[in-house]
């Protein structure tokens, strides 16, 4: 249900007042503890919050109930006291700089978060939105959160669960929903904002940038693609079962909707087992994952796009030995396409993935060059010295993260999201001395 301008203005005033009240007496450590405690409430299998999300989220998100459960484990499992502490220490040097002047070099410095942050969430996968709210609270900012119609559930329920732990802290957040075409409402939310965190496609981000007050910080997280590379030394019969299980997880989780979801696996040739073996084994692992955690419901259009790609490759595969397709027997729940052509092929998503042979890491760089600047994560197996050298090449290309296959969907809290810090860009410093 959309809100009115008056309601947005009221939410801005209310969250800002809550911030003033809280700033007086709360320590960062207490905020971390409250956030971690709220997250923990979700993890228990009998959790009320879990039950409510499982009941409410499948409809708007399109995820299966089992996928919602998996999303809860991934999202809230990462929000521990230690992880938050590490994030603050790493980005600000010391988490206490938010509470008091701390000696940094020759001066004493204190960091202050924005008075008001407006968050514009994308709703494709839950973790970024929940994290965004946590960042705002760690900095003790007031937060206006515009949810996507794709996922109004997770952000609202999280703040509600936080309220149970710490109502004073939860008062710093207002979760609202309005159509993004309603620019008057967006303007109302932005008028007093000091910082904007925007997730979404280029058009969404550009539209927000136009409406944002010129002096406000603007952090945008746009569209990205990810892929993975399997080195020949990983391609042996001993490794393969665990490797494809990890790979199937990276592709299938969140039904491949996230920026971190791989579109292509490049498999190096001349290993003990060949790239086709990997494709076949990956297909089996994707089937196994699907039987545990089914793919969600697709719109006719989304399903048609998957079916089109399948039919195109199935027709080719019938007479072209350079192409092969493994596909779920009923429905179009998962599809693995093996193709000799090494050029990077973005997938139509929803658990459709390409496997391509490569004769080396250097060659992969050429094949993905066209997408330089748009690549989020590269999964690699195994993470050895050769992989580290490759990571150096990928860094020069502007890739933001290199990690083991199986970890693509589990970035640590302290990662550089899209290559930048999460909190350090938002604070302002006062130095004494």
């Amino acid at each position, binding site marked *: 249900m959309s809100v009115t301008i008056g309601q947005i203005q009221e939410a801005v005033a209310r969250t800002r007042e809550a911030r003033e009240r809280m700033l007086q007496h709360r320590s960062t450590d207490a905020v971390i503890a409250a956030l971690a405690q709220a997250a923990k409430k979700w993890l228990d299998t009998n959790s009320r919050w879990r039950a409510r999300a499982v009941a409410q989220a499948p409809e708007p998100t*399109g995820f299966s109930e089992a996928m919602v459960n998996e999303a809860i484990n991934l999202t809230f499992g990462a929000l521990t006291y230690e992880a938050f502490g590490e994030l603050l220490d790493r980005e600000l040097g010391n988490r206490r700089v938010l509470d008091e002047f701390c000696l940094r070099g020759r001066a004493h410095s204190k960091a202050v978060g924005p008075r008001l942050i407006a968050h514009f969430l*994308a709703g*494709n*996968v839950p973790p*970024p939105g929940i994290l965004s709210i946590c960042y705002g609270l760690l900095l003790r900012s007031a937060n206006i959160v515009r949810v996507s119609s*794709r996922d109004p559930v997770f952000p609202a329920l999280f703040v509600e669960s936080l309220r149970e732990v710490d109502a004073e802290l939860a008062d710093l957040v207002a979760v609202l929903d309005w159509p993004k075409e309603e620019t008057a409402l967006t303007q109302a939310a932005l008028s007093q904002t000091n910082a904007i965190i925007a*997730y*979404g*496609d280029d058009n969404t981000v550009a539209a927000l940038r136009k409406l944002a007050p010129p002096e406000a910080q603007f952090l945008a*997280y*746009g*569209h*990205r*693609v*990810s892929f993975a590379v399997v080195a020949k030394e990983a391609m042996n019969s001993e490794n393969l079962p665990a490797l494809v299980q990890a790979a199937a997880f990276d592709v299938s989780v969140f039904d*491949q*909707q*996230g*920026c971190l*979801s791989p*579109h292509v696996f490049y498999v190096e040739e001349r290993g003990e087992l060949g790239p086709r073996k990997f494709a076949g084994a990956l297909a089996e692992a994707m089937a196994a994952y699907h039987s545990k955690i089914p793919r969600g419901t*697709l*719109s*006719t*259009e*989304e*399903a*048609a*796009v*998957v*079916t*089109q*790609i399948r*039919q*195109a490759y*199935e*027709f*080719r595969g*019938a*007479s*072209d030995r350079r192409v092969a397709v493994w596909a779920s027997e*009923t*429905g*179009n729940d998962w599809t693995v396409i093996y193709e000799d052509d090494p050029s990077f*092929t*973005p*997938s*139509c*998503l929803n658990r459709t993935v390409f496997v391509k042979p490569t004769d080396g890491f250097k060659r992969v760089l050429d094949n993905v060059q066209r*997408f330089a600047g*748009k690549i989020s994560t590269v999964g690699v197996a195994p993470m050895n010295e050769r992989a580290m050298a490759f990571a150096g090449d990928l860094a020069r290309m502007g890739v933001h993260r290199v990690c083991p296959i199986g970890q693509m969907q589990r970035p640590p809290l302290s990662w550089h999201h899209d290559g930048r810090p999460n909190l350090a860009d938002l604070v302002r410093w006062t130095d004494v001395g």
Partner: protein
Amino acid sequence: MSTDLQQRILAFIRGAPDNFDALAMEVFEFQRERNPNYRAFCDRQPKPAHWKEIPAVPTSAFKDFVIACFPVEEAVAVFHTSGTTRDRAGKHYFKTLELYDAAARPNFEAHLLGARASRPFGDVFPEHNGRDARAPELTPISLIPRDPHSSLSHMIDVVAPHAQPFRTDITEPVIVLGTAFAFMNLFDSGVRAKFPAGSRAMETGGYKGRSREVPRRELHRLIREHLGIEHVINEYGMTELSTQFYDERPGSDIKDVPHWARVLIMDPQTGKEAAVGERGMIRVFDLANLWSSLCVQTEDIGVGHADGRFEVLGRAAGAEVRGCSLNAEMLK
């Protein structure tokens, strides 16, 4: 045997009694035998017992393979799809244009020239002998550039051989032929006209990737408003087919299916025929495609009616895609 089949289909299109179901199965066998790529594809699937089960050739295959049942050196025409640079164009090879022309003319005349009331598929068009006696005299003017590799350009040559380039200073009733994109360009450049009563317009094709997209109803409204033409009909055709489908009448989105063709709406989730009224992917069976592919799986979304007619709702690839991940469509 092949020319025999061609003659039978030609006669069937022209109204001779025959049986679609039996003809379709014969054409399937004919194509399976003569196209090794199609045969390899069919060999991986259950043998069809009914025309509805005949394996469909996806439109993408016209890019990846030669979809022809004759040596293509003998082709009298090759029509190309309008592919983008990255996307190779699909090619449709024609051993003869006889079937295409026979299918195009009466179908066009029945929907654009005739005063014919709409009837469901299965009706038989009158043997074509020049223009339908009931048809008004209309001066054809075309917005479609001539192009030897365009299926649409050829169709215009067949149905309106004396079409003149578009102009507004014509005093007798006209029939304006153009793509949706061409009409929009015309209006964007400020062209306005008031063609005499009884004038008609046919628009066709999408706007994919073009600067300005308007819904079909809006386009028809603009044609009425800016050209003064009340009778506006959408044509649904594609390079990979030999038969076109027209709105049953102005203001209706329902496409008539001529008796030599069938359209099924396929559920993309199950791969089976979608229930009447359910959205799905449009699959066309076109007997006039004897020398290429009887059964073509399009990339369009549609909805079927109980009488075999259908509506076109749009392209699947234009779907709003969830997710922050880039996808194939956005990276094109």
